[in-house]
């Protein structure tokens, strides 16, 4: 399993935060409250799982260092519930943020003691270092930790070498959570590439359970069948049908129409079989031809991860030096030095014959252009990195098959982390209309000892139990399957009832 999808290790041994629970009554808004503030809010915590300490009764004091895109996005998410202070070294940028958001901005160097003290770092409950510079983020977190040991520090990192160091020695650099944007984005892309027909893929229970979202095409063999008829795949559960932006929990007699999207949960093999059945021409295998455009860090990690899966992708990078560096670092990848929008080049190298094209150029517009170009040349499937989350839907309408937003990926990761008290793993469906959670059933859970049929009666309507793993083995959930303490349950839940469900589980 790739490093960043692993639960932070310090949570696993429990020592870091158990002491926190004892003496505080945190005034942290519950998840449900947070969800009301437009879009998901990754930094609010379920009541049972405080990951950081607060002092009696006042609101959470958050210091964000760096007002780049990520910093701004996080600040926007947090502004209503928390006291947010943003430290930014460019004065004009700091001004911009002051007018745009309800936060306090301080102009200065985030690694400078005076600046940090001005940001009231001594009172900070959480420090987020999100500048574009890894070293700055690390030093800022270390500095914050040195001044306020109780503050929970999160650093955004691009270079995976620091991530490896941090994983090697948890809490290294005084960082409590390290989030590697580029790596997470690349992993997300590779999951999509690995299951090309899927619009979204997530793994649970250490890879034993996969969740995937598929669009049902016109010619698909399951079109116009009821869920009961279509449900002929071993260990696969239909978790949801997405139709015209609505999320529908499937019943046995629900009919699958062309253009619907379905969310299925099951073993990787069954998901693969399902994918092959509904979209045989897109079925992935190791000979799949993948072209990655743009040798950014994301492009690099995509190729590296594909190499690990036994694929030999082609990578196109325009810059001479960068192309050379990439070629040196990626032994199984064929690196080409060219302008990827040059039609001559694309035709010469038969890019149109590729199964998948991933565009990781530095601007959203270029990525869109690249994908449209590839489409015209005949590439079967295009994936684009889209920085602006708001463009994702638009781009997917225009012709990009899958848009991956690094910010959304990072937000998901951080939310996944904050949920980790009981929900070990979480994936968002349809921009947070629903979630798929992995939960370990504790002995005092209301569901422990019940059959699924009984459990479903206790749970709200819009919940589907997708899969159960017991002793690291997958059990297909049927009505008479008994849920036991210690089981890992992967559930599909619509967002409005998430709190209710997590409380029950």
């Amino acid at each position: 399993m790739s490093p960043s999808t692993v639960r932070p290790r310090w949570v696993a041994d429990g020592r870091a935060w158990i002491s926190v629970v004892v003496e505080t009554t945190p005034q942290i808004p519950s998840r449900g409250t947070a969800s009301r503030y437009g879009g998901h809010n990754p930094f609010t915590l379920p009541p049972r799982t405080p990951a950081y300490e607060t002092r009696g009764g006042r609101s959470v004091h958050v210091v964000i260092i760096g007002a780049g895109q990520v910093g701004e996005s996080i600040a926007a998410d947090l502004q209503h519930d928390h006291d947010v202070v943003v430290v930014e070294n460019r004065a004009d940028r700091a001004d911009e943020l002051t007018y745009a958001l309800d936060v306090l901005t301080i102009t200065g160097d985030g690694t400078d003691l005076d600046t940090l003290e001005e940001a009231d770092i001594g009172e900070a409950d959480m420090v987020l270092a999100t500048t574009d510079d890894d070293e700055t983020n690390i030093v800022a977190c270390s500095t914050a930790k040195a001044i306020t040991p109780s503050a929970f520090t999160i650093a955004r990192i691009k270079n995976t070498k620091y991530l490896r160091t941090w994983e090697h020695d948890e809490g290294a650099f005084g960082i409590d959570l390290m989030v590697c944007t580029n790596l997470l984005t690349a992993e997300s892309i590779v999951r999509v590439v690995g299951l090309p027909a899927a619009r979204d893929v997530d793994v649970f229970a250490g890879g034993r359970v996969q969740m995937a979202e598929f669009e049902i095409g016109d010619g698909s063999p399951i079109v116009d069948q009821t869920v009961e008829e279509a449900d002929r795949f071993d260990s696969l559960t239909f978790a949801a049908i997405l139709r015209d932006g609505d999320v529908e929990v499937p019943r046995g007699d629900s009919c699958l129409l062309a253009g619907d999207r379905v969310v299925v949960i099951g073993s990787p093999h069954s998901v693969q079989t399902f994918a092959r059945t509904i979209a045989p021409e897109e079925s992935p295998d190791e000979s799949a031809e993948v072209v990655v455009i743009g040798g950014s860090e994301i492009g690099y990690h995509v190729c590296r991860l594909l190499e690990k899966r036994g694929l030999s992708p082609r990578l196109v990078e325009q810059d001479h030096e960068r192309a050379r560096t990439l070629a040196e670092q990626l032994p199984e990848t064929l690196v080409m030095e060219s302008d990827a929008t040059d039609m001559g080049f694309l035709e010469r190298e038969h890019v149109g014959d590729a199964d998948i094209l991933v565009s990781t150029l530095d601007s959203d517009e270029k990525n869109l252009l690249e994908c449209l170009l590839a489409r015209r040349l005949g590439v079967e499937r295009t994936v684009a990195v889209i920085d602006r989350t708001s463009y994702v839907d638009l781009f997917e309408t225009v012709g990009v098959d899958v848009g991956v937003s690094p910010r959304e990926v990072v937000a998901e990761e951080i939310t996944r982390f904050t949920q980790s008290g009981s929900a070990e793993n979480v994936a968002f469906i349809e921009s947070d209309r629903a979630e798929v959670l992995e939960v370990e059933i504790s002995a005092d859970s209301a569901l422990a000892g019940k059959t699924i049929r009984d459990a479903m009666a206790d749970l709200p309507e819009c919940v589907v139990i997708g899969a159960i793993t017991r002793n690291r083995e997958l059990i297909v959930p049927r009505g008479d399957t008994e849920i036991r303490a210690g089981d890992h349950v992967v559930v599909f839940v619509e967002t409005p009832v998430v709190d209710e469900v997590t409380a029950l589980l």
Partner: protein
Amino acid sequence: MPSLPDPTGIADRIARWRRRPVRVNWRASLGLVGSILVWIAVPLSFPLILAGYYDEPLLPFLVTIAVTLGVGRGLERLSGDADLGGREAFLMVALAWLAVGLIGAIPFLVAGNGVIAHPVDALFESMSGITTTGATVLVDFSVHGRSILMWRQVIQWLGGLGVLVLAISVLSQLSIGGTQLMETETQTQDVHKLSPHIEETARMLWSLYSGITLACAGALYVLHLVGIAPGMTPYNALAHALTAVATAGFSPAPGSVGAFSRAAQWTIIPFMFIGATNFILIYHFIRGDWLRPVRNEEFRYYVGVVVGTTVLMALLLLTDPSVSFPLEAKLRHATFQVVSILTTTGFATVDFNGWSPAAKHVLFLLMFLGGMAGSTTCSIKLLRWIIVMKGFRRDLFTAVHTDAVRPIRLSGTVVEEETVRDVYAYTLLSVVIFFALTAFVAVDGARAGLEISEFEAMSAAAATFFNIGPAFGVAGPFGSYHPFSNATKAAMIVLMWVGRIEIIPVFVLLTPAYWRS
């Protein structure tokens, strides 16, 4: 005196060049060469003791020791402070090998026996020794004392790992510029330091080298004690161990290794093989990193070439009706000759002059390969051929995919483009020099009335320039280079020297920009 007209302006340019200051600290280089010469007295004392033991004349060695100490001390006075930069390293490497070659000839001259009483022949024998070539001018071995014959073996052993690696291990002045020297001497950039101190690295290499040599001598002597190698007396065991591990090829016996038993011949094969294996690899292997050689791409190629050509050679001998050995002998001769020529040792167990043209040409082509870089081997070395081959493969690929960026990898590590260019240039230069020497040998042979075919001229050129030893024809494995004219021998002396220190350190001295810029 009225100045001559100078239409081309050359004289003017030379005059301007001469006005520029000399940028090379040649005094430092010479001073350090002096220190090396002083140390040469130590190995010289070994044949001296041997001469005393066998009751042979002591004078050749006493004179040589006096000369080397005198010249060495004199040169040492030249150097003020040993400031060794890149330029000084080139000069020192070139001069050190030349100086040791000259000193090595003195015992032959003073002893005054046989053909090597002549200065050119003495220098040929000495240079062939120190460069680990193993080409001999001796005709009648019986006129030479055992101590003189052992001196040939000793200088080969000194030249095997490199005079400068030895120098670095004993001269503390070289602890700073040592890495550069070592890399200049062997033209390899993979002198990974085994220890943070270059001095200690050099010592480790020499201990390893000595250890393997002793193991070889011990193994040969044990065969003698067991009774399956009657000729391998302690003297012969040591003499052959010294030149087998050094991949050098001199033998005190006129019949080379062919004069000894089957068991001795089989035993020497693995030691020649080890001698041409990267010593750093051997070091890690001995220290318990068993899989390191397997991970090394050059080693895999090395084993592949040895096994492949041995099988080919064995098939050629087995199917050749004119060769009338029993089966075991055919296999043994095939293996021995292939390993001996490939590793640039030059021992022989049989006169391969009588083999079929196919077998002879296989041996001839092996002369261009050599063993692994970082070993005692000479010639172009497998490492370079692998890089050339991969470069060529890359060019074929980029001819179709013009935009592809393909670095060349060796054992998974990327080879710098600059290194690739250097390797191309070196390989091409080697082949050009080889052809030039071939032409010289053939033309000069015709002038001097020596009957020599083009193939024999080619083989003699390759055998000397690539430091192998035996050629085909008159200079065959049991033959001698004595019939060649003095001019040819002189050219060979220079090119043995140039070839052993891998061309660049000598050629760079010939450029004006080296001296004044």
